[in-house]
């Protein structure tokens, strides 16, 4: 059987950054497997700008951002396959790939899981009503318009204030559609403040918080939606129903890490992130399996995906060289103010960056990491939003023993 030190499942931003960084660290027996015709992942359809400020200090479109990494991978001569779909990764790291040339099996020493995420759908939300044509997730709408040159509707209503939904509100408006409104069930927007400014406010598209679609109408194509206000438990308030005539509904209601392959390989998931439980080396609980990017936890900015994957490359390089990684016995726990952290476990033997998301909006607060009663790291913030990923450096010298760490937000 074909053997590789490292097989990378997915040639999107995380996979590409991991591959390039591994090469720089001297790990060259790597294979990237990408199911699309070209590498770049979801960035290929993100033709708006705003990528790269953190990673490159300049603003790029999605394809431009991806191209920088693709160019690196090609320049280094890192092997990659496109049009190649991983069907299965066995628990002993045999990767089965379908290609038009045949079924290929590769034994890897380490497997890097960088499959990204998928969008939450109408069915997963269970939106009541009929099931006509014209209900698209934001990413599907974006793919149709930007990759396939297909216009998907004229009168549009958007459910969910996720970033892609807002970006599509602007895109549809620029292409002549009329976007009537964005409805968000939560009392706060789920996307970034800059997208509310640049994609909604600049185009006079209203955003209604604490509102949701309670019925979709239309037997053939969408003819309209009924929208209701919701109470603090996000239950629709009877009597607040309002009908909107439209032919298109765009859903931007969340992303789900695409971990089907991981589950079959025996990787343990964290129910809070729906990504793998990882340590500071980005190794999952299944030895030799690593994960980074949106398959691990949904990021707000691609720059952080790249940085995380580059960090992962450190751990993978060490694993390939030494065959084992140090134990990570210190677990990181969250209280109810914090949704999750990545990593969930650390060794205590090196400085790490802890990524987290808060569960609700906080103002003038401090994110605190404690061990026992001792504060070991903190970050004061004017504003903490669930839409934004927060990163906190944790110095190894600050740790006091191997007790578990608790993360919370205090105001």
């Amino acid at each position: 059987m074909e053997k590789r030190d490292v097989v990378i499942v997915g040639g999107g931003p995380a996979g590409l950054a991991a591959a390039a960084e591994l090469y720089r660290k001297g790990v060259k027996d790597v294979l990237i497997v990408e199911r699309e015709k070209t590498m770049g992942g979801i960035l290929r359809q993100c033709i708006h700008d705003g990528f790269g400020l953190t990673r490159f200090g300049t603003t790029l479109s999605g394809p431009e951002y991806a191209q920088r990494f693709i160019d690196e991978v090609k320049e280094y001569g890192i092997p990659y396959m496109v049009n190649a779909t991983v069907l299965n990764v066995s628990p002993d790291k045999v990767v089965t790939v379908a290609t038009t040339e045949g079924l290929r099996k590769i034994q890897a020493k380490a497997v890097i899981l960088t499959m990204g995420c998928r969008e939450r759908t109408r069915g997963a939300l269970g939106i009541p009503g009929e099931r006509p044509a014209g209900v698209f997730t934001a990413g599907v709408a974006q793919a149709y318009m930007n990759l396939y040159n297909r216009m998907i509707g004229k009168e549009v209503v958007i459910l969910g204030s996720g970033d892609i939904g807002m970006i599509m509100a602007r895109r549809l408006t620029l292409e002549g559609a009329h976007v009537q409104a964005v409805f968000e069930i939560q009392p706060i927007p789920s996307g970034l403040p800059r997208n509310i400014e640049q994609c909604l406010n600049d185009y006079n598209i209203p955003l209604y918080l604490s509102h949701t679609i309670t019925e979709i109408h239309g037997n053939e194509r969408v003819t309209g939606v009924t929208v209701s206000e919701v109470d603090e438990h996000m239950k629709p308030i009877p009597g607040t129903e309002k009908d909107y005539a439209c032919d298109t509904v765009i859903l931007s209601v969340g992303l789900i890490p695409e971990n089907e392959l991981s589950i079959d390989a025996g990787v343990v998931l964290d129910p809070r992130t729906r990504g793998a439980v990882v340590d500071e080396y980005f190794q999952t609980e299944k030895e030799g399996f690593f994960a980074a990017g949106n398959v691990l936890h949904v990021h707000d900015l691609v720059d952080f995906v790249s940085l995380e994957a580059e960090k992962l490359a450190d751990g993978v390089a060490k694993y390939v060289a030494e065959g084992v990684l140090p134990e990570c016995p210190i677990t990181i726990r969250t209280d109810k103010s914090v949704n999750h952290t990545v990593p969930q476990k650390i060794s205590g033997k090196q400085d790490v960056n802890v990524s987290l998301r808060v569960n609700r909006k906080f103002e003038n607060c401090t994110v605190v990491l404690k061990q026992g009663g001792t504060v070991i790291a903190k970050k004061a913030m004017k504003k903490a939003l669930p839409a934004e990923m927060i990163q906190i450096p944790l110095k190894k010298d600050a740790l006091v023993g191997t007790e578990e760490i608790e993360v919370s937000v205090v105001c």
Partner: protein
Amino acid sequence: MGKFDVLVIGGGVVGSAIARELSRYRLTIGVLEKNLDVCYETSGRNSGVVHGGFAYDTGTLKAKLCVEGNRGMGQLSEELGFAFKRCGKVLVGKTAEDFEQLKRTIAQGERNGATNLRLLNKQELHDLIPTAVGEFAMFSENSGIVDPFGCTVALAENAAQNGVTYFFDNEVTAIERGKDDWKITTNHGTYETRWVINSAGLGCGKISDMLGIKGYHVIGSKGDYIILDQRMGELLPMPIYPVPSNTYMGIHVTNTTDGNVIIGPNAETVTDFSYYGVPQRNMDYLAESASEIWPYIKKADYIRNYSGILPKWVDDNGVIQDFKIEIRPELAPNAVNLVGMESPALTAAVPIGRMVVGMIKEYETLEENPSFDPHRKGIIRFSEQDDETKAKLIAEDPDYGELICRCEKVTKAEILQAIHNPLGVHTMVGIKYRTRSMMGRCQGGYCQMRIAKMIEEELGVKPEDIRYARKNSWVFTGEVRKEEA
């Protein structure tokens, strides 16, 4: 619009089974279907359960044809290449009253000719289905599950291969009795035929009236369903039903041939046969009610909901009647009238077809069609093959190596076969029904763009002419930008 020996109105599972049975004879046969594909209504919107035949009053057509249909389903699925699993099914009970009802059900089933029915105690139930909740149960070993789309499409495609012509987007608007034929008018014109079959499903009352057989009162019984992720299928080896009443099977949980779990249906009487919306309160009710017999229902596993409507013929007191399959020469000569073809018509479709042929044979001699072939080769599903077969398929056709749908692992080769299907259907849902693409947990998030593009390229369809499911279910208004010259 052409002359026929037989025109079948309605291309559901019953109409298609009748058409296929008729194609065993030298006849010119057409099927008029108002939708753009078979299986858009009741035939595709149900639990997909192959019933044992114990739930119907002894002596009824429902009982007789269901038992026959159950017996023949294995052979049919092999001939036609659709998914069928004789996995058994249980009815779980709790009270002494339930126990008596189950004993009566078994006795009735045995009178109907259903076999392999027995009672299970709590331990036996637990051994059979560790996830089921109940104090005892009735086990019907012969019951099973079928892919209702696959079954209907297979019957229709096999009928088409044996010479039957399907006319889609043909809604019957008028029927007139000529001197010795029928003139059937649709939105596309008038067809002439010696025989007409009313297998219009939800439209059976309307067509019956048009034929001159008036007075059937047909109501709709609408049921909603929730579909759960395939990962949940591991926890459900066979359908679990509550103890039935005389008129209603109750909300059950059913495994599907593709490994999903479906929950439903409730039963609401409706008069609008075109509204398939699912209200929030019904979804909540389904989940709550089904959790009593199978407590593994979580919203995180929902992937879709749907509903279906059963046409029920009721008498003046609202009592649901048996299937009506009749020829009324005094009112409508050379017309076979089928009314109230509700459950178990999916199980019973082929015996119904045979019965219809038998009735026609009482009026004329049918000459056998020597070239009739009962076999149909379905689309080979890549995902269901072992690695060796997968490699072989790719070697024979490289398109089997290109995955289009990631969740259900459907390849380009399968999509191409579905696009060039024998019935000439080219809706997106038509491709979905035939391949399972767009049916998985991402609901087409990854593959629908590719499929729409393949339909455009393979069939030369303009973007604005792509249809999702129904006639006006457009997907695109056109192109975003015209290419610069």
